[in-house]
């Protein structure tokens, strides 16, 4: 179970981690904690909270490693754990929770150079399509599609009722589908 560059796969490391192999836990930490912490810092500007969430996430990873059956990939699974922990920790401390500032996004009116960058990014076409959505719709897509929350969790996070989230998500997906005729949204 080794990839071509000789690295053990995440799933193999997880199995070792379940037995308390500290080296395996460390390897997974080195692979995933940097991007995870960077992404969390984009959601929360309290460093101590991020430290705690990163810590909790990897402890949870180690505890649940035995149950890991290889569904999906480890990175997405870890982000799911991390973001839910963050949201539940910050339920009473909204001031440190950074919501992506969708209002600052130019409504399709970008400097040409930046538009170039965006289109160069993988999923850049998604980005371009997102730009055409209204800020409320973008927030819902971000929470439910990109960050992987359930509609109930997203409702709590965004401070709207679950039904509202469902409606907005439904409409946003329809609009995106039109914008990205060639991308299968469900495949995300």
């Amino acid at each position: 179970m080794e990839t071509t560059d000789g690295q053990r796969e995440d799933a193999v490391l997880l199995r070792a981690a379940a037995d308390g192999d500290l080296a395996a836990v460390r390897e997974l930490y080195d692979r995933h904690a940097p991007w995870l912490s960077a992404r969390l810092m984009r959601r929360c500007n309290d460093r101590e909270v991020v430290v705690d969430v990163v810590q909790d996430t990897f402890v949870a990873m180690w505890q649940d490693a035995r149950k890991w059956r290889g569904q999906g990939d480890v990175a997405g699974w870890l982000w799911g754990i991390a973001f839910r922990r963050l949201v539940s920790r910050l339920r009473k401390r909204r001031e440190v929770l950074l919501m992506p500032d969708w209002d600052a996004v130019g409504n399709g009116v970008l400097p040409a150079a930046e538009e170039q960058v965006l289109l160069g990014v993988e999923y850049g076409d998604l980005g371009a399509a997102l730009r055409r959505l209204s800020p409320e719709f973008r927030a819902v897509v971000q929470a439910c599609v990109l960050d992987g929350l359930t509609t109930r969790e997203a409702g709590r996070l965004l401070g709207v009722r679950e039904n509202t989230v469902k409606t907005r998500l439904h409409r946003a997906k329809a609009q995106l589908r039109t914008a990205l005729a060639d991308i299968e949204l469900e495949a995300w």
Partner: protein
Amino acid sequence: MSTTTWHADPALLQAYVAGELDAVLSASLERHVERCPECRGAVRPLADGPLLDEAWAGVRERVESRPLPAAIRLAQRLGLREPSAVLLSAAASLRLAWLSSCLVALGFATVATLMSEDRLWPFLLVAPLIPVLGVAAAYGDADDPFEALAVTAPYGRTRLVLLRTVGVLVTTLPVAGLFGLFLPGPAWIAAAWFGPALAMVPVLMALASFIGPRMAGPLVTILWCGVVLGAVRELPPTWPIEATQQLVYVGLALVALAVLAARSVHTRKIGAAL
């Protein structure tokens, strides 16, 4: 895994980490990074090193040692020192399995007692033995190779046995006392069985200093059974815990303590009296 060969260039990742990308670009990049091991690796040198070290210390701590049992953490909040908590958490006589089997036995005894109005002996038989047998178990087996380490450690086996003994008494007595409240008859009965229970502990320890805990435990059990069952036929059900008998128990306990003290002064044996 990413299927494309596109990778974020360092400047773009740097801008993302610094929070300089707008929401849409960030979202696209996050989407990519979540699926691309190479770009995840590229974030590593840009991430907040001290933050990662701090979080890692916490993760390592948790993986290395299991958290202390809930009951012991509660005791810590009530003033139990941390080193003692570590020692208690490893004591077999404080394991959930041991305690719960005691409680089941006591539960049956309580029910048996409640079945008839003038019968008290099943409860009186079981309840005082629970702390005593717990203490006997607290000794561990001196020949157990694990206990052999405790013998040569500066903390000392005597202190370890005493610490476990206190742990056993603190955990078993309140729960057993609670069962006592269900007993029929006057309220003092619920408290009176503490007399023989507490007296039997020093008696056990004194016996153990001569014949070892493995022999002393059963011996004390037999003696107590003799007292309770011997009284069943002709004496009133509360006889084993009435005032005169309580005085005898106190006397026995005092004698046992004196024997223990004398043993620990005179024994030349390394490892002390316990």
